[in-house]
């Protein structure tokens, strides 16, 4: 009896130890990671993955600031949020030797301004933000941000915009041709007036519903992320994603190593895993954006590789969302609050 007890105790202790060694805590966007890929990682390494999700870069920052730092290993911030997290001292660094697949990163995504030399993060997915239009409702020219901010008669009252100040006000600034993070009074007044007037033609504000409203027909035009638009099209919405002449917002989400990560080794193993072309391609096939990793082409589904949403026409202007300094950010916050009051 004693031996049985002792053996089971040892077995139990061993099991707990193994579990403690092989864990990974991932904090990711919603609808952004196929379960099969996590299963494959667990199969290859024996590391079990738990994932929580958030719905905006700001929500991620708020959660980390409210004390969740130290409970996650990896997170997936967008470009400007990598910079903010880095400046706040919330990211850890790694050496190239610790992530051998670092050399798989495409050149254009290696030396990026938000994480020079890729010391804390690796590419996850990149894509663009503009808008999509239901072509059965409106068949005119859609290659202008006027579709959202000075809409044609057919689309009035049938427009959804993203419920995030950053992307919506940036697209509005592009429509007016004014810089981001402006502190110029006349420019900000013009921006405020533009969105206030446009709001009368908008049906709703929503980010997580951006795809559904286009599929259901509640909205006939809507600001949306490129991969989400591709998915909406795949679900039968007769929509076209626009690359307006004023430009599109480009962003890259990155797998970033958090400070005080409880399972740093697991985190590095996962980063390396996600930089394997086959795995990066599997993620791209699911999320329908682009990988930022070389050698993915042969693993991509043809319809994803050739999707019009991921292949902007030659000469499309691109803009990254900028993180404004505090004294300027309060002005944009005030415009957003005023818009939604």
């Amino acid at each position: 009896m004693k031996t049985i007890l002792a053996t089971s105790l040892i077995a139990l202790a061993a099991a707990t130890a193994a579990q403690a060694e092989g864990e990974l805590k991932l904090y990711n966007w919603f609808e952004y990671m196929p379960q099969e890929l996590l299963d494959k990682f667990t199969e290859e390494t024996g590391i079990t993955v738990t994932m929580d999700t958030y719905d905006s870069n700001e929500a991620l920052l708020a959660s980390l600031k409210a004390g969740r730092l130290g409970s996650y290993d990896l997170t997936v911030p967008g470009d400007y949020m990598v910079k903010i997290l880095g400046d706040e001292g919330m990211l850890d660094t790694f050496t190239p030797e610790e992530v051998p697949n670092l050399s798989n990163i495409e050149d254009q995504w290696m030396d990026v301004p938000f994480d020079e030399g890729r010391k804390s993060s690796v590419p996850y997915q990149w894509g663009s933000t503009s808008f999509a239009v239901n072509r059965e409702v409106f068949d005119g020219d859609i290659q202008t941000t006027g579709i959202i901010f000075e809409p044609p008669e057919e689309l009035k009252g049938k427009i959804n915009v993203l419920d995030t100040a950053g992307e919506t006000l940036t697209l509005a600034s592009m429509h007016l041709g004014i810089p981001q993070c402006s502190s110029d009074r006349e420019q900000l007044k013009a921006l405020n007036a533009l969105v206030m007037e446009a709001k009368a033609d908008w049906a709703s504000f929503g980010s997580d519903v951006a795809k559904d409203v286009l599929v259901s027909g509640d909205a006939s035009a809507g600001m949306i992320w490129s991969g989400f638009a591709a998915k909406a099209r795949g679900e039968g919405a007769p929509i076209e994603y626009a690359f307006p002449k004023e430009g599109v917002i480009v962003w890259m989400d990155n797998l970033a190593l958090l400070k005080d990560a409880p399972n740093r080794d697991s985190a590095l193993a996962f980063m390396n895993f996600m930089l394997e072309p086959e795995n990066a391609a599997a993620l791209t096939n699911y999320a329908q954006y682009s990988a930022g990793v070389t050698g993915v082409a042969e693993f991509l589904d043809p319809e994803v590789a050739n999707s019009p949403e991921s292949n902007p026409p030659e000469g499309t202007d691109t803009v990254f969302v900028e993180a404004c300094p505090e004294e300027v950010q309060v002005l944009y916050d005030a415009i957003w609050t005023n818009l939604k009051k």
Partner: protein
Amino acid sequence: MAAMAPGGASSSEIYKGNASRLLLPTWVVIGVFLLVPVALMATYSFLTKEFRGGVIWEFSLAAYDQFFLDRGLFGDEPPRIEWTFITIFWRSIWQAGLATLLCLLIGFPTAWFIATREARMRTVWLLIVTVPYWVNLLIRTVSMKFLIRDEGPLNAMLLWSGLIDQPLGLINTNLAVQLGLFYSYLPFMVLPIYAAVERYDFALSEAAADLYAGRWTTLRLVILPVVKPGLIAGCILVFVPSLGAFLAPDLLGGAKSFMIGSLIEEQFKGAAGNWPFGAAAAMILMSIVMVVLLVYARSQTREAKA
């Protein structure tokens, strides 16, 4: 106090020694999950905001200043009354009040109907009222959205029957939000009123009739005073959660205008990242609710004394 019998040891005396110990779990729960968070929130509302979320431990009235005073977009104009947040609060209070009224108008007759059935049928009716609420609130709100959208079954049916010739355009309107709130909280109105009506002695109505009271007078002078506690409890149970509701405004109203709930959420989760302001808005909301409850409590004690 009222439980103590004049002279002689009442039964409450025997339990008195145990009372404080028996109440300990309640105090721990109230302390840990209510008082501490409220104290924390009150403290945060008087601190200096840290850029992009968080606080600096320095006393500041900036959050309350921002709530009540408008100094222009660039902060250099003479202060005037800030209407932005009063507007947002008023919108929420108005919507919650309207939802409460709707629930009351439908809930009272419903509760009356159920309470006047025979005992076996009452259980069935109560079950029918509560069954939909076994489903998660989010699912029910999304279902409501599917029902009332322009291409949804409601419009399809009305169009087919020829009652209307184009969709009602209900989705993303305040009316849709009202429908959502009404549907979400109706049982909270029905159940307390039912409990009050069930205890009502119908002999009182007969007595009133014998004394030549009309139906309206009976309702006003006999029934209402008896079921009033149920009505008030129902109104509070509907009004308070409606005030902080964010699912219905977001999903059915299109999130076009801030409600109190989404305004506060934006301060913690949005780009603004202004924790002290979010805490201050929450404190002001809580003060409003407290005042309503205190007024109610005082009117109750005054009645009890009379």
